[in-house]
């Protein structure tokens, strides 16, 4: 009986030939990362409860300030300062204001075959490069930071076979929203979502990350795409080498297999307040919006910015709409700048933010008020996620957000894209 990619990575990380779903293993991690959402608690546990003196490997522990950048209060600044002091003391890689943590990890650290643990739920993004990433809380993280090991239950795998081609105005973002809508917010709880099929083979790394990033929104432990030439080229162009290029065996066991055809896909939108309450944009009716957001670890990369710029170029957004655009990293920002996209955004009336989590996280830039409606490319539309408990969030593609910012109401982007 064969193994899936996820099982193979876990077997290797735990020094075993074979692992099977349900088995509890102790695995060695390749990297661990923590951001300013919880690191102040990690440091407290590390220093005051574990009484630890050293991190397990200073090259494999990464701290990233990305959630509240730049800080909006002295209390937040205190958290950032604590991270800076710890990073300096332990001589670990430290980033501040350089981008959303998962994008920085993908650009600077992740290679196929790794096991990566981070104190953030969207760590499953790294599956886009064929690495097993999963999010944990700060106690788990702190123990990993100290020992380099973690206990894990080997998850079942679900397979998603994607065929066909996107129609204009339809993106990977629409696909993952569609999938989550179909299987539900706990449809993959504790499992691996493995994305494959002829369409995914042609996907860019950006698109693969879009799929894997939101696996956690279906409850998954990780999302994975088989690493191939596209993944190898991505990491090699950044001076790194793959650790292992695992492929799922022909006879690997999946708990379930789902089939999707992109030719049939249309722009999708998740309506408040659940990520799995997903309908086609065409069915949404007249919904007025107060704010749009393009960014986040899900949808703030160059391809999404290009899609938005194509719609916004030479136009002005609705005067009563605030449109916030936050490129996912400094590298993405600079590329967008070189391609003239930043000029387009500034001139259309958008607010171009520094690379950070922004309103996807909802406690720093672009917080929305009582009764306001946000359309976002972020990861979640939970009640109150972007500000006031009585506010609403719709999740859609960058193109849908851009089209909606022009009209002031939720708008199908098709017809506005070439």
């Amino acid at each position, binding site marked *: 009986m064969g193994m899936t990619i996820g099982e193979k990575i876990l077997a290797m990380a735990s020094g075993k030939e074979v692992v099977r779903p349900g088995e509890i293993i102790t695995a060695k991690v390749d990297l661990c990362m923590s951001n300013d959402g919880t690191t102040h608690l990690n440091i407290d546990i590390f220093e005051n409860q574990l009484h630890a003196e050293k991190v397990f490997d200073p090259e494999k522990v990464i701290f990233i300030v990305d959630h509240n950048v*730049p800080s909006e209060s002295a209390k937040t600044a205190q958290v950032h300062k604590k991270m800076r002091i710890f990073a300096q003391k332990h001589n670990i890689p430290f980033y501040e204001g350089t981008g959303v943590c998962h994008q920085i990890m993908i650009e600077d650290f992740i290679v196929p075959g790794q096991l990566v643990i981070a104190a953030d739920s969207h760590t499953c993004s790294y599956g886009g490069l064929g690495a097993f990433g999963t999010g944990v809380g700060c106690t788990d993280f702190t123990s990993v930071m100290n020992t380099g090991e973690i206990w894990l239950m080997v998850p079942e795998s679900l397979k998603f076979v994607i065929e066909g081609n996107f129609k204009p105005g339809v993106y990977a973002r629409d696909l993952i929203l569609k999938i989550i809508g179909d299987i539900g917010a706990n449809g993959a709880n504790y499992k691996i979502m493995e994305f494959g099929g002829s369409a995914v083979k042609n996907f860019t790394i950006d698109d693969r990350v879009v799929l894997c990033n939101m696996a956690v929104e279906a409850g998954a432990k990780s999302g994975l795409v088989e690493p191939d030439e596209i993944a190898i080229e991505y990491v090699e162009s950044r001076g790194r080498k793959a650790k292992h290029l695992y492929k799922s065996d022909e006879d690997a066991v999946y708990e379930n297999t789902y089939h999707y055809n992109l030719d049939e896909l249309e722009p999708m939108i998740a309506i408040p307040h659940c990520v799995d309450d997903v309908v086609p944009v065409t069915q949404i009716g007249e919904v007025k919006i107060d704010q749009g957001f393009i960014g986040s670890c899900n949808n703030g990369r160059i391809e999404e910015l290009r899609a938005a710029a194509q719609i916004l170029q030479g136009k002005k957004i609705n005067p009563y709409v605030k449109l916030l655009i936050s490129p996912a990293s400094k590298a993405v920002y600079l590329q967008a700048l070189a391609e003239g996209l930043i000029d387009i955004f500034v001139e259309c009336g958008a607010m171009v933010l520094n690379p950070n989590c922004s309103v996807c996280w909802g406690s720093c830039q672009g*917080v*929305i008020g009582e009764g306001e409606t946000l359309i976002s490319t972020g990861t979640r539309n939970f009640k109150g996620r972007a500000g006031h408990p009585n506010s609403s969030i719709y999740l859609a593609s960058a193109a849908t957000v851009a089209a909606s910012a022009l009209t002031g109401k939720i708008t199908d982007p098709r017809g506005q894209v070439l």
Partner: protein
Amino acid sequence: MGYTLTEKIIMRNTGRDSITPGELLNVNVDKVMVHDIFAPFVIEKFREMGFEKVWNPDRIVFVYDHLVPTSFIEDFRHHKIADAFAAEQNIKAVHRADGVCHQLMPELRYVVPGQVVFGTDSHTTTYGAIGAFSTGIGYTEMAAIFGTGELWIKVPPTLKFNIKGDLPKGVFAKDIILRILGDIGADGATYKAMEFAGSTVEGLSISSRMTLSNMAVEAGAKVGVIAPDEKTFAFSGVEGSRLQDLRSDSDATYEKVFEYDATTFKPVVACPSNVDNISDVEEMVGTRIDQGFIGSCTNGRLEDLEIAARILKGRKIAPFTKLIVTPASRSIYAEAAKAGIIGILVEAGAIMNPPACGLCCGRSGGIVSDGERVIATNNRNFLGRMGSPKSEIFLASPATVAAAALEGKIVDPRKYL
């Protein structure tokens, strides 16, 4: 007997042929500016006073800049209240995220030379740079202007600052005004008009002149005026021939005249926590800093970003040090992006924020905690202005801030120029 520029603007406005400092009189208001943080209060007072219609909707400008982007759940209320009032009163000039009010007012030509303008912000003195009489007032008085179009003022005596000669390398308008503040003190011009003149001032760009006028209020001044010239007329898009009289008469009466030789100037910093606590940069070299800030209505213009880019080009900001850059307006951001300036700043590690007040107003955009030090291009270094009362703020020119960010400590910017 002649009159000063300030007196002449008031005389033009009131139709008077003579005027004396200390005299109280009513002026006809040409334009007013209200920003988001005080808009709800102006509107509330306006209603409490029993007014129903504003005197002239075309003379009112709303600018949302202090609470942009919103950082706290209640921030949006200010924008909603102002939006509703603007719609009700037919006020069309509403800028929701286009930049800092004092940059937009002259840039978008809401203010032109010779006008009398009030704003609900102390740095309304900025428009003196283009030869307007402009000053900050509270929201109650603004509500009264909304209703009546008038305000009583006391005619201020004028202090003249006559600055001559070429500025040495590494010395900018910010260094001039900080130097003056250090000399006359934070109350050295209380209730007075400051007038900046002389060959140095004539040689300054409109942007640099705005830096001078902007900080006049830090000496307590009511206005900080500069005679308009061809540069001003071009900037404001007005016919200069009709405004030739907008300059002080040679026999005007000044309360005092200060003479400065610009060639002796050096880069300076205002040390914590008073704007008039001025030291030469040379004396402060080596002072550790955690964060730099380039932006605000004082120093967030294209030439400010440009000089920072010249220093940062091909270099990296010191580890564990931040540099936050906030262009003063949307068009400045766009121009800087096109000119390659933004690319240089971001390459070097700067954190680019959208045009707004940002850190200067102390509500978001890089608030600091206990023990942290900021070096900034804005106008105030008051205790706790940027967060913890146990933090410290130094004020300096964009060049000095950029150089400090490179080394994580205060350094002489001239070594990078």
